[in-house]
């Protein structure tokens, strides 16, 4: 993650060679990690594999991108973070990834920053986060449980029972009320922007993986003597998925550049809707096998649904776009 040499001019509107290499190396690392088994363990509350993967993601510098250099981070570098989250989504990595990034954005006050950010940046701890009374993802796994209530940002004293999510890898927990008040007037807008950006990028990666898996499947599934992927009805659904994802991608990267509330909301709704539409197509084109929990496709299918409403429903994000349009 060093800056490009003077020979390389900063590319306008495009990722630079280093960012593309960063994505490829994360993709390779996560691909080799065999995430499906890790995800299934995580869903049962068996966290050893997930924690090991978390450490490797932290070593690659992913969480550090959300944390300033003063607190052992490399950031804030939202474009690189978005690049990384696309890859995390592509491999359906479990754990409170988005929440850890959003927590870093909320804890930027000098005292709490010194106390918590180095551990988040280096992967020594994971955070979860929720508005008081709302469900927090993976409250049983995160050491740092943060709740925003009327008084500010609190360190929640614990969590309630795990409630299953449609995506079994997202373990929903209510945080217990009270606890130490960390930041009386936290930058909620900033936290939300980082959460939405990371969710949008993650959803884009989920959608890209669903598309890739489905293209491979319809290329080998034979009916009527030919691969079903040679039928126009099948091709056109996949073409539409590709189009939706390709037009969500520049919104995600553009939002990471501007970090404006409007651009981030637009990216969130587009990426999540594209991923969800791709999930519907992926399920349908796989047929009955896609409808089973046993088949790994389910790990991505269910995440696409969950991310659609995480950190801003489509309605909330569209309302933000309309509010912010000059």
């Amino acid at each position, binding site marked *: 993650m060093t800056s490009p040499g003077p020979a390389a001019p*900063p*590319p*306008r*509107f*495009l*990722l*630079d060679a280093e*960012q593309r290499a960063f994505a490829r190396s994360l993709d390779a690392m996560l691909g080799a990690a065999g995430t499906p088994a890790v995800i299934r363990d995580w869903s049962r509350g068996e966290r050893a594999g997930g924690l090991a993967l978390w450490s490797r993601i932290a070593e690659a510098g992913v969480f550090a991108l959300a944390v300033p250099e003063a607190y052992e981070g490399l950031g804030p570098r939202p*474009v690189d973070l978005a690049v990384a989250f696309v890859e995390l989504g592509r491999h359906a990595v479990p754990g409170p990834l988005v929440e850890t990034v959003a927590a870093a954005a909320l804890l930027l006050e000098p005292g709490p920053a010194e106390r918590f950010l180095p551990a988040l940046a280096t992967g020594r701890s994971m955070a979860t986060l929720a508005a008081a009374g709302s469900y927090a993802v993976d409250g049983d796994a995160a050491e740092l449980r943060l709740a925003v209530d009327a008084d500010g940002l609190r360190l929640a004293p614990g969590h309630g029972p795990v409630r299953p999510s449609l995506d079994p890898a997202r373990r929903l927990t209510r945080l217990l009320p009270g606890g130490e008040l960390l930041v009386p007037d936290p930058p909620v807008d900033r936290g939300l922007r980082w959460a939405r950006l990371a969710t949008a990028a993650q959803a884009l990666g989920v959608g890209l993986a669903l*598309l890739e898996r489905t*293209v491979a499947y*319809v*290329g080998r599934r034979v009916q009527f003597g*030919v*691969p079903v*992927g*040679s*039928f*126009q009805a*099948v*091709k*056109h659904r*996949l*073409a*539409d998925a*590709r*189009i939706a994802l*390709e*037009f*969500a*991608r*520049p*919104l995600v*990267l*553009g939002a*990471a*550049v*501007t970090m404006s509330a409007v*651009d981030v909301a*637009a990216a969130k*709704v*587009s990426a999540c809707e594209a991923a969800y539409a791709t999930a519907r197509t992926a399920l349908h084109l796989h047929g009955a096998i896609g409808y089973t929990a046993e088949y790994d496709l389910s790990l991505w299918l269910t995440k696409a649904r969950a991310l659609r409403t995480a950190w801003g429903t*489509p*309605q909330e994000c*569209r*309302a933000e*776009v*309309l509010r912010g*349009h000059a």
Partner: protein
Amino acid sequence: MDLDRSPADEAFRAEARAWLRARVPSEPLPSLETAEGFAAHRAWEAELAAAGWSVVNWPRRYGGQDCGLLRWLLFEEEYYAAGAPGRVGQNGVSLLAPTLLDHGTEEQRARVLPPMATGEVVWAQAWSEPEAGSDLAALRARAVRGDGGWLLSGQKTWSSRAAFADRAFGLFRTDPDTPKPHQGLTYLMFDLRAPGVTVRPIGRLDGKPAFAELFLDEVFVPDEDVIGEPGQGWRIAMSTAANERGLTLRSPGRFLASADRLHALWVERGCPEAAAAQVADALIGARAYQLFTQAAAARFLAGERLGPESSLNKVFWSEYDIALHETALDLLGAPEAQGEAADTDWSQGYVFALAGPIYAGTNEIQRDIVAEQLLGLPRGRRR
């Protein structure tokens, strides 16, 4: 990654904005699909050209400013934000000109491009035939070798702008005995007022003669009006179709301006909650198209071939354009019940938009290209 514009780019934008503010007609011109409107739009092209704004990204020697694709995108944003007239020369400028720049001779470029830039010569396209639509390579209109040129015979149809245009370009079969249908085709330019040409205007959905049938009876075309080698027409037409044309056929500026106007209409109607999602999607889609096109242009300028990616574009903007206009007509429907009025800018834009998924390769053809060439799915029969 960077979305900022250089000070020089911003100066270019400011200059374009100032000129357009001063010169864009305060009253909209009559529809360019009428004789009167066509003449008015032609005069507007001359005014643009005189100030150097008609084809900003072309080389200077043909009437452009050689400003590059990225500044062209800025110009287009300013152009449509200013509410400037539709471009009567679009067929020639976005389809024929890139072909000439890639495959024409210098003599052809010097002869054809400057009068195209000023609107003195307006071009129509002549691709489709009664039996060759999506299956364009099935075309039958022929060009037979004559003395110093070719004689065109046959029928072309759905020829946009041909009712009032001066010249046309298209593909003709010069060798009827090739093993495959897309071989033996030649890319030709011809005069719509030449002996042997009969133009029969066709009323589009709203009755305006936006396109025409062309009946050709031994129409003479000199050799100098053949683009590239005879027999290479398909390759020439497709290479341009898939490349720069994918970027320049519809600029994001047009949709950014339309989305702004839709939002203003929604606010004017009291921000009805029922239309909120569609209005937000129009704003989001225009931004997506802007960012997508900027990135594609940057990659094109870096030497990358875009090829089949232009099919993603075409499906996106053509469906977007219809959805945006449908939302506007729905908003106009209450409280004064003028959603169906045919004389609003919105209803005219709606009729125009309806053709988008059909022309320039139907969206089904584009989805086949995405599936086969971008996703790598097996080729199959079109069923």
